[in-house]
């Protein structure tokens, strides 16, 4: 038994933390999320060079990582740094492309020269069995019809990997330069609606349902790790504030009623970290879906509690835009709505 990060992952973690601290100070980050494309395209190649993207797939697929722990190492740091870069879409696109054997696309993504969004879910269709978008061969070329909704990282992307129904099941397609309607997100970063209207596409796999499902579970694991990073920072900020804020002639952190609530936050972080480690250890196995669902459910509950309690215990300051904690709380709270919330994943666990 060994709960320590390997030397390589520790180095990646340290490097990424240093980079994000230097490049994404709070004011810079807030300026980035304020205008389209709601992230900093110039930084993408630098992140790729640090090895962040290559960590998402194994050596046999052209990368140098690929396990659950490689993913959680990167995303915990992205959470700690409140980084608005659309790395989630890159993770899912890269893993799905690799599983479909799209080698050139994998290489371009790892190099940071091509950034893709991962477009699966649709208006009121946030499970795979409900997808309606369709792919058809017209004169020997694939065209797509339908609409993808709240696609993370779509603004400014070079293209999107799109899930669409084919005669053979659920296919995966590359759409270059898609027609999109982009917008900012309340927790930073951007997303968009992808309108498919006889849109030409390249087929990566006519029956890629398993690859798409596996990529989504990798994405959920990443969100769990991001949440652990966010929770850790936000709880530290809250405890610091309780120690420093004085009312009634004493630090408010000296009141037992508040101490106990801070302790409950700390316990939830440990639970969250533990379930994320468990899910990471199962990624790539037959049990991945079940344990990822468990993690996403627990994280959804813990994230809500920690976001709400941190705002409450900060008082008015925690409600302000200029206080970083409010942005950590927003991101943490919104993670529950990404790739299925706690209720969706509770039902997956019940059904497993």
């Amino acid at each position: 038994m060994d709960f320590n990060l390997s030397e390589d992952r520790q180095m990646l973690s340290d490097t990424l933390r240093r980079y994000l601290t230097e490049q994404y100070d709070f004011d810079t980050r807030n300026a980035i999320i304020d205008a389209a494309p709601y992230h900093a395209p110039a930084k993408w190649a630098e992140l790729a060079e640090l090895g962040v993207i290559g960590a998402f797939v194994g050596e046999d697929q052209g990368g140098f990582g690929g396990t659950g722990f490689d993913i959680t190492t990167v995303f915990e740091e992205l959470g700690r740094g409140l980084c608005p870069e659309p790395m989630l879409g890159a993770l899912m696109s890269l893993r799905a492309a690799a599983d479909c054997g799209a080698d050139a696309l994998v290489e371009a993504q790892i190099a940071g020269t091509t950034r893709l969004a991962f477009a699966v879910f649709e208006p009121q269709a946030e499970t795979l069995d409900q997808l309606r978008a369709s792919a058809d061969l017209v004169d020997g070329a694939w065209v797509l019809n339908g609409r993808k909704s709240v696609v993370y990282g779509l603004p400014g992307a070079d293209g999107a990997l799109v899930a669409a129904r084919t005669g053979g099941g659920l296919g995966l397609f590359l759409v270059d330069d898609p027609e999109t309607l982009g917008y900012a997100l309340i927790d930073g970063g951007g997303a968009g609606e992808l309108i498919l209207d006889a849109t030409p596409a390249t087929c990566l796999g006519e029956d890629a349902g398993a690859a798409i499902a596996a990529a989504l579970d990798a994405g959920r694991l990443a969100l769990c790790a991001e949440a652990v990073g966010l929770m850790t920072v936000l709880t530290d900020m809250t405890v610091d504030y309780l120690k420093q804020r004085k009312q009634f002639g004493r630090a408010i952190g000296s009141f037992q009623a508040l101490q106990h609530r801070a302790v409950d936050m700390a316990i939830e972080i440990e639970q969250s970290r533990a379930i994320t480690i468990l899910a990471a250890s199962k990624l790539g196995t037959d049990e991945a879906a079940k344990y990822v669902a468990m993690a996403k459910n627990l994280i959804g509950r813990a994230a809500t509690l920690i976001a709400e309690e941190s705002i409450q215990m900060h008082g008015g300051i925690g409600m302000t835009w200029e206080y970083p904690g409010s942005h950590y709380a927003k991101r943490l709270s919104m993670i529950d709505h990404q790739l299925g919330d706690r209720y969706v994943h509770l039902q997956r666990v019940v059904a497993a």
Partner: protein
Amino acid sequence: MDLSYSPQEEAFRDEVRAFLADALSEDLARKGRNGDELTKADMDGWHAALNARGWLATTWPQEHGGPGWGAVERHIFEEECAMAYAPRVVPFGLGMLGPVLIKFGTDAQKAEILPRILDGRDWWCQGYSEPGAGSDLASLKTRAERDGDHYVINGQKTWTTLGQHANKIFCLVRTSAEGKPQEGISFVLVDMDTPGVELRPIKLLDGGHEVNEVFFTDVRVPVANRVGEENKGWTIAKYLLTHERTNIAGVGMSSRDLDKLRTLSRQLLRGGKPLAEDPIFAAEMAEVEIDLEAMRVMNLAMLSAASEGAASGMQSSMLKIKGTVIRQRIQSLIKTALGASAAPFPAADLPDNALSVPADAAAAAATYFNNRKLSIFGGSNEIQRNIIAKDMFRS
């Protein structure tokens, strides 16, 4: 025991509904439903409509322009206004300063100020909290020093709601450093355009501008602008806070939000079926409905006791805690109901067909984050628990 409203009270409810159907424009109601920010003109216009009907200053006695309602009528009125998505009456002049002046003001102050609140010439804001004095309000440090027949004020106030629209501010200031902190506070009225008053906006986490900081640098205010005796302002401050906490349960707003949640749960699909048919989500909705039904009766019991002069501060603190928690939970469920579509922001900038969610739900996440304030302001829920505990454990 009889939980029903009297025929007179039911007739009054019909009268309020008829008024709202007539006076509340669809445009204004839609802004309320969609969670859009109201302009000063929106709020002034609504105040004028209520004033024309004689229903603006609901807590004032009739001789000063109030409607002469009791606690039950006020409750019915507030419930109906909330259900119709009417704007909330801006409370600082009408709900706070007005009652203070009526109880503590001089005849001259009443004659000059009350009519200007009613007809909208003055917009008041509140100078209570300071960066170092929130829950511990009595530790406030903004100083007012006597210089002949003026006070000279220096210091800073914060969380001043809608101060950007105000031409007047009422302030708690320190006029003495002797004795207990509560014993050196005075209640002073200040023109916002007095030299040395500076207002700076505070942006909230949902991007909205509703609160401000107000800085005072050598601001000269006539001593005649003080309300009540010098160094006796704490009594006034506490009296005002009891008015801040009326309608604190927000039953009408929670009922309205629960209606919206139920409607959404029938419109929105999850796994191909309406969300209302999802057993886990349906159970969450049922639980909050149960809590709201109980609180509705708890609130009525308190109103009934208040009518008989027997309501306690402890009950109003309980209502504040439970009422805000229920409202926040409903908003959390609305945000959850939207799934991934809760995240786009700011929704108002998008074309109408950009998102596949109803327009009145598009701002759900912003509303949820904004309303985390409910359990913080007006005496945080922690302070309310202290008030209750003090009463329960009194030896």
